[in-house]
């Protein structure tokens, strides 16, 4: 097969100034080189028929005049953008005497793909190895002679910004245009997998390729899926031949992997030959930190320490504030009750107990959430959150999730509502749905508050152990349910993915402030709408028709549920209390207080240890509060909300029955 490189042929080269085209990616110093070479002798206009800027100029070296053309900055020559089309069309149609490929020595890999493509075009190429000073600062050592030998083209090390290497560059261009130095480019070749196909296409199009295109280059571009070349050859080829070519291209759509893959292999070889990277001791801060923070063992230890610090900080700072706000809400409720004393009692109580007591209770959690949001924003903004996602992925993956699910689940310890909203950071619909379904099993602060109040009543000095056991059990059940849902119901897509970890950096105060502000605002909007409304409705159900709690509609419903309670050794009052937790978890305690009076002495006598544990287990796994359910509905729709509620209801009641029955059998 013929080489795609054409013989350099402009016969007028002896009379006209030699044309040098400057090619390269954006931001590699191409314009600096152009300006240094041309000085004031430049003209700025537009490429014919395009809106892209064209810069041309002249320079003289050693008595010889050169015309310089600054090509648009491009990453490749695949006609993906107007800039790429302009650059390649210019080289193909105008055939400059020399193409100077400007590359950034500090990120040589990035620039060499374009060089690999330039070597396939007719004009000879000189490599301007720019930004050598930056590479040196980064500890990267490049050996230009080795690179020159590996590429087979002249390589000129330089630093245009410092004015070094410019003279050497123009001298090399002059020598190459006068054929005083050898030009034996070592181009990348297509991998064997598609070499035969390339040859077939080449044979089919060879006689029909319009000038000045080279058949070998066009064949390669066709196989790469280049739309412009497809259109060109569809017009140029007889219909039958085009059908043959098209058939081959259709069958070998993945040939691009072999073609581009070969270029990356070629780049890899060049880099291995000529570039020496900094050693471990010279690594940047991110690499050094990641050696510890993404290590399976040390990273996990660091993660546990960070999470411990997050919870410690949140509760140490937030709990006193929450208690203070609780006092404010109670005071406000009493104030409203007094202010409304002239209205009917139900109306005053609705405002004091139902609306302010219900929605206000939720607002008292605000200090904890604000601190939690701020800490999360700092972790996110410093780049550490990405490492958390990376580290936790192993565990999450067994549940069909990935590390990003850990973040919303972590939020669930504060409140399930932001946890559900937090699932928005998960890209795949399936992983997102699964995280939403599992999030209510993370014990939120409200659920934990109920556990913390009730457990000592039943278990005395063993309360701490029982409470931790309940939390651990909830998390184990979460993991098991995740695995089950993943394997049985939601089996499907693979979540293989690659993560580019960001550099660590100092957090930006404004970013953190905005994050906290917007999240807090969203939380308050919810508390002021959904939670407030439902609190009022439930209070009304617990008050009417007679104004006596034990005769209310809610109690009637509790009696109706009594048979379910009996399986767990629970009287109807306990089931009713559980039911009211649907509004807000803390309602459990309020309801028990209404139904039992002095529940702290009544409860231990009313329940056996097995029944008490069963109640706590059900409380831990029961359907979440209405605000969470409303958020789930908003995020995943009616069907999956219903599935989630039935799942949690079945799970919690089954676990309660199991605990009670086994406990009773064991004599507790």
């Amino acid at each position: 097969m013929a080489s795609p490189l054409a013989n350099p042929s402009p016969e007028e080269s002896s009379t006209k100034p030699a044309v040098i085209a400057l090619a390269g990616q954006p931001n590699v110093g191409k314009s600096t080189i152009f300006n240094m070479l041309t000085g004031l002798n430049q003209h700025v206009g537009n490429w014919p028929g395009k809106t892209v800027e064209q810069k041309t100029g002249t320079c003289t070296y050693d008595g010889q005049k050169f015309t310089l053309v600054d090509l648009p900055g491009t990453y490749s020559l695949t006609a993906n953008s107007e800039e790429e089309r302009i650059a390649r069309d210019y080289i193909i149609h105008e055939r400059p005497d020399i193409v100077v490929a400007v590359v950034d020595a500090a990120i040589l890999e990035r620039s060499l793909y374009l060089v690999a493509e330039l070597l396939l075009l007719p004009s000879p190429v000189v490599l301007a190895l720019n930004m050598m000073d930056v590479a040196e600062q980064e500890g990267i050592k490049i050996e230009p002679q080795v690179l020159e030998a590996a590429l087979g083209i002249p390589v000129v090390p330089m630093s245009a910004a410092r004015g070094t290497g410019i003279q050497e560059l123009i001298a090399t261009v002059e020598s190459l245009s006068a054929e005083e130095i050898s030009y034996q480019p070592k181009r990348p070749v297509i991998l064997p997998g598609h070499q035969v196909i390339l040859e077939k296409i080449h044979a089919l199009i060879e006689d029909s390729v319009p000038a000045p295109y080279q058949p070998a280059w066009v064949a390669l571009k066709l196989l790469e899926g280049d739309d412009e070349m497809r259109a060109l050859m569809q017009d140029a080829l007889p219909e039958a031949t085009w059908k043959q070519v098209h058939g081959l291209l259709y069958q070998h759509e993945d040939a691009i992997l072999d073609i581009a893959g070969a270029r990356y292999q070629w780049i890899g070889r060049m880099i291995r030959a000529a570039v020496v990277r900094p050693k471990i001791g010279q690594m940047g801060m991110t690499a050094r930190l990641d050696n510890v923070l993404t290590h399976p063992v040390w990273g996990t230890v660091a993660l546990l320490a960070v999470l411990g610090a997050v919870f410690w900080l949140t509760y140490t700072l937030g709990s006193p504030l929450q208690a203070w706000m609780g006092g404010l809400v109670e005071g406000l409720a009493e104030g409203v009750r007094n202010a409304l004393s002239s209205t009917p009692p139900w109306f005053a109580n609705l405002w004091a107990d139902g609306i302010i007591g219900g929605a206000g209770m939720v607002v008292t959690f605000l200090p904890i959430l604000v601190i939690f949001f701020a800490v999360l924003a700092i972790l996110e903004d410093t780049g550490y959150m990405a490492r958390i996602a990376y580290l936790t992925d192993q565990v999450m993956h067994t549940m069909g999730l990935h590390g990003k699910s850990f973040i919303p689940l972590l939020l669930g310890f504060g409140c399930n509502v932001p946890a559900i909203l937090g699932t928005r950071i998960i890209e795949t619909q399936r992983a997102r749905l699964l995280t939403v379904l599992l999030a209510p099993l993370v014990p939120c602060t409200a659920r934990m508050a109920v556990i913390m109040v009730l457990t000592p009543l039943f278990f005395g000095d063993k309360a701490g152990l029982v409470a931790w056991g309940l939390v651990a059990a909830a998390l184990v059940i979460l993991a098991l349910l995740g695995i089950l849902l993943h394997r049985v119901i939601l089996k499907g897509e693979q979540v293989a993915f690659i993560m580019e970890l960001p550099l660590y950096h100092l957090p930006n105060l404004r970013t953190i402030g905005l994050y906290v502000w917007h999240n807090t605002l969203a939380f308050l909007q919810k508390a002021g709408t959904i939670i407030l409304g439902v609190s009022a409705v439930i209070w009304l159900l617990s008050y009417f028709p007679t104004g006596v709690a034990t005769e209310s509609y809610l109690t009637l419903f509790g009696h109706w549920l009594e048979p379910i309670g009996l399986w767990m050794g629970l009287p109807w009052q306990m089931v009713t209390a559980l039911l009211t937790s649907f509004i807000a978890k803390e309602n459990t305690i309020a309801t028990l207080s209404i139904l039992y009076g002095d529940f702290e002495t009544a409860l231990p006598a009313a329940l056996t240890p097995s029944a008490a544990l069963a109640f706590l287990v059900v409380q831990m796994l029961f359907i979440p509060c209405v605000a969470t359910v409303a958020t789930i509905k908003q995020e995943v729709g009616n069907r999956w909300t219903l599935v989630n509620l039935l799942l949690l209801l079945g799970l919690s009641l089954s676990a309660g029955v199991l605990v009670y029955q086994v406990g009773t059998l064991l004599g507790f």
Partner: protein
Amino acid sequence: MLHRLLQQIAEGAHPQTTAALADTLGTTPELVLQMIEQLARQGYLSASTQCADGCEGCSLKALCGVKNSGTRLWTVTEKGRQVGEILCDFPT
């Protein structure tokens, strides 16, 4: 090289960083990143958007998630998975 990279990603049982993939392929993270972007351009990988689909219309869209940290994620597309599976069956 691109085939091997796609195979590595498709077979991966856990998330992979560009540094780890570079180690496996005997190249540099920078080159791996470049290849990932190429695979994404060709439709074999999909670059994650900053927010999930449900974020459309959300007032927090600009703030939540990975946007601020600069993290980028890529997942294997159906097209990429097909090629990856073929490669897993018939290693090249």
